[in-house]
């Protein structure tokens, strides 16, 4: 059985690298994207089980990405966990996300949220 695939979306290269390192060390498979447009391409190519999404990004921000994702029937149920430095948890509700982590969050909080999201997940259609 393959481990869950987590797509990490953030425009900050160090944030991307650090979160991918954390997840990789816990045996998750990881994919990365620098903005919402890149993330949509990664969703098509990789079929992630969960998406960690920053909100403030160039090209296509997190809210625009989430809305675009929710309009795609095959992807509208992919769980999203918001990771943002904007300090506004209400943004998670606005994009129907499964949770919100305010940077800087604890590593354990991240792993706990990702594990909770992945635990009941059935393999996705087309995965």
């Amino acid at each position: 059985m393959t481990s869950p695939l987590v797509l990490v979306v953030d425009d900050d290269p160090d944030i991307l690298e650090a979160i991918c390192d954390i997840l990789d060390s816990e045996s998750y498979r990881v994919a990365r994207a620098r903005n919402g447009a890149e993330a949509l391409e990664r969703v098509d190519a990789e079929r992630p089980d969960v998406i960690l999404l920053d909100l403030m990004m160039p090209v296509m921000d997190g809210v625009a990405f989430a809305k675009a994702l929710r309009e795609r029937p095959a992807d509208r149920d992919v769980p999203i966990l918001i990771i943002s430095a904007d300090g506004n948890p209400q943004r998670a509700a606005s994009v129907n996300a499964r949770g919100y982590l305010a940077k800087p969050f604890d590593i354990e909080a991240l792993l706990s949220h990702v594990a909770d999201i992945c635990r009941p997940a059935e393999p996705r259609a087309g995965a």
Partner: protein
Amino acid sequence: MPLFGVEQVPERQVADHPEGEAERGPDDAERRGAFLGFVAHEVRNPLSTALWSAELLGRITAEERGGARGEKLVAMCLRSIARVRQLVEDHLLCERLDAGEFPLRVEPVSAREAVGDAIERRPPDVGEIALDIVPDLLLGVDRALLVRALDALVAMAGRDGTAVRIAAEGAGDTVRLAVSGKAPEEGALEDPVKGTPSDPRGRALALPLARRIAATLGGALTAADGRYLLTLPLAKGGAALPRDVAHP
């Protein structure tokens, strides 16, 4: 005041600028809130990676710490802390200038020497720097602030290894410093707000800072023809130092 003397400017007697605390109205308060939100956002990202990389270094084995992963995490931690430091330094100076709490020391400052000081501070990712500075050009400004403004402009113009050119010439009773390289983006001189793309080098406040410094020194920062133009007062009493002072 002596011809080339130092003028101590009391606190709060700085140049009029729209960010000044006394002039703030509701719009200014909203703009300031948006600016502080941006600053917080910019600090939280490198703070996150500094904390995570330090924690991961504490979790991994000694063997891993000595290997590629350890090197990567140490480099990330140091890079992140340097980024936070730059942001904090720039923000603190922005706040002091906004509050009129920076004690100015206005004196004749050689354009060539100030540019030289700024070049020494340039980050490693800035490309080659060419100079075209009229000899013996003297500004009547606070030297430390001028160097900080030039440093900020060089960092922005030199992004992604872009070659930078700095030109300086007198124009009436002002000195015009032009910094060209990577062109300013539209609206770059406005205060950034939440949603503005991050700067991974921690220079997100470089332009707001340079703009505040220009205003504080009685000048202005503008963008034109793909260049940053810093216009500042010429030193009172003349444009030239004695040759042996200008070129020791």
